[in-house]
């Protein structure tokens, strides 16, 4: 059994900030991430981030992990990092089980935990949706921006939210043709700046459209789409067929937090936060003592909020196990204010409505 003061599960923006914050207070931290490098979703975001100055707006997503890791290196005698390591279980007695690569399995018993496991992509149901060539938007991004491999030649993008729009743009940067972008909603969900840029490049954005079926033998060869009415029912006779070898599904993310449910934290379904989320207090402590949550795992939002939530959860987790710095209340207030500022715009109204439902 490995001992640790604080274990942070997930080394994306939320986890890295949580680790930094806890280590700054003097706690020993173990970061566990199943990926081979840290940074979570950021490692494939080639666009400049929106958000506020303090959370690196106008910096490219791919450059943020490096900034965070440099900062984290200041506390290197306090922080241990385990990559290629998946937390596979979190038990009632507080033990976390970890699988390192394919062959090493061990247990860790921490005093406090911050779960920052992020989110995963939702799927869409239509006939033949399991054909190879139909990929999540995040997968397409990983393939292109991390590995330098094109997903195919012609792509149909399903979903006109920010992710769908940004990934479409990135596909064109990689030299891949985007046949069209569709969205079942009557309006484009993402920012208009992104949408206009893409339209100017000649890609049609079809609102009130959905996928009727995918066609192909061993992999995707064609996609049939159709119009939907205001109740999202398909309208017969409006079918359009696209010759595409890739369909990119970008219909949103949902929090990845089964470990918390397994540990016995009270969970609640909150549509505004995109799925099942843990009930927690204002310090991001769940209903199980000393178990904290931060980032997309606590509700899908964005990297800027994930980072601040991480700082807050890390600070409070360290304080709970005896590392309460003199400026604890100032730091806590500062993080809470930053979160309020990030959530002050009209785009964040649904987040606030969601947060109201899970406050402990």
């Amino acid at each position, binding site marked *: 059994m490995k001992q640790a003061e604080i274990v942070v599960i997930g080394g994306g923006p939320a986890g890295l900030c949580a680790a930094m914050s806890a280590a700054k207070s003097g706690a020993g931290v173990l970061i566990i991430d199943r*990926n081979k490098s840290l940074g979570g979703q950021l490692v494939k975001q080639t666009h400049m981030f929106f958000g506020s100055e303090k959370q690196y707006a106008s910096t490219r997503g791919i450059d943020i992990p490096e900034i965070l890791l440099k900062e984290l290196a200041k506390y290197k005698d306090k922080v241990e990092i385990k990559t290629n390591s*998946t937390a596979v279980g979190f038990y009632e007695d507080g033990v976390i089980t970890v699988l390192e690569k394919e062959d090493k399995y061990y247990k860790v018993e921490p005093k406090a935990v911050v779960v920052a496991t992020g989110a995963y992509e939702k799927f869409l149901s239509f006939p033949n949706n399991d054909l190879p060539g139909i990929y999540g938007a995040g*997968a397409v991004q990983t393939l*292109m921006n991390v590995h330098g491999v*094109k997903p195919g030649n012609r792509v149909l993008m399903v979903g006109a939210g920010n992710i769908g729009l940004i990934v479409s743009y990135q596909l064109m*940067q*990689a*030299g891949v043709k985007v046949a069209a972008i569709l969205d079942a909603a009557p309006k484009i969900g993402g920012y208009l700046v992104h949408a206009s840029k893409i339209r100017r490049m000649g890609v049609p954005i079809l609102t009130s459209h959905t996928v009727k079926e995918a066609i192909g033998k061993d992999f995707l060869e064609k996609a049939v789409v159709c119009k939907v009415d205001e109740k999202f029912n398909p309208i017969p006779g409006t079918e359009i067929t696209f010759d595409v070898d890739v369909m990119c599904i970008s219909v949103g993310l949902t929090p990845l937090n089964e470990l918390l449910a397994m540990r016995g934290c009270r969970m609640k379904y909150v549509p505004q936060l995109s799925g099942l989320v843990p009930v927690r207090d204002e310090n991001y402590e769940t209903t199980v003592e000393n178990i904290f949550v931060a980032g997309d795992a606590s509700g899908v939002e964005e990297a800027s909020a994930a980072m601040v939530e991480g700082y807050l959860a890390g600070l409070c987790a360290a304080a709970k196990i005896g590392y309460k710095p003199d400026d604890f209340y100032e730091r806590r207030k500062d993080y809470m204010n930053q979160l309020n500022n990030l959530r002050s715009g009209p785009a964040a109204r649904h987040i606030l409505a969601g947060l109201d439902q899970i406050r402990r």
Partner: protein
Amino acid sequence: MRIKEHPILKFNKEKKIKFIFNGQELEGYEGDTIAAALHAQGVKVLGKSLFLHRPRGFYCAIGNCSSCLMTVNGVANVKTCVTDLEEGMVVETQEGKGVIV
């Protein structure tokens, strides 16, 4: 299907790696995952589904969905989207559950 030119990114693909896919020798680069190397060579079908034997490719590419399971060096159910390619690796499409030795 490698990206040759990119306005922002540079891909340091220098060291070539040889591996065997279903008995055939293929090439990838150091730093590739198995699934990325196969995709770059145009291989999209990584396995067959358990009951209906439908073709399976990757879906999430971050180790979440198990859509990319293959038999690697004789070991079944390897998530090829997050497993690095290594010199001489023997990679096979997996049919059915696979056998745990």
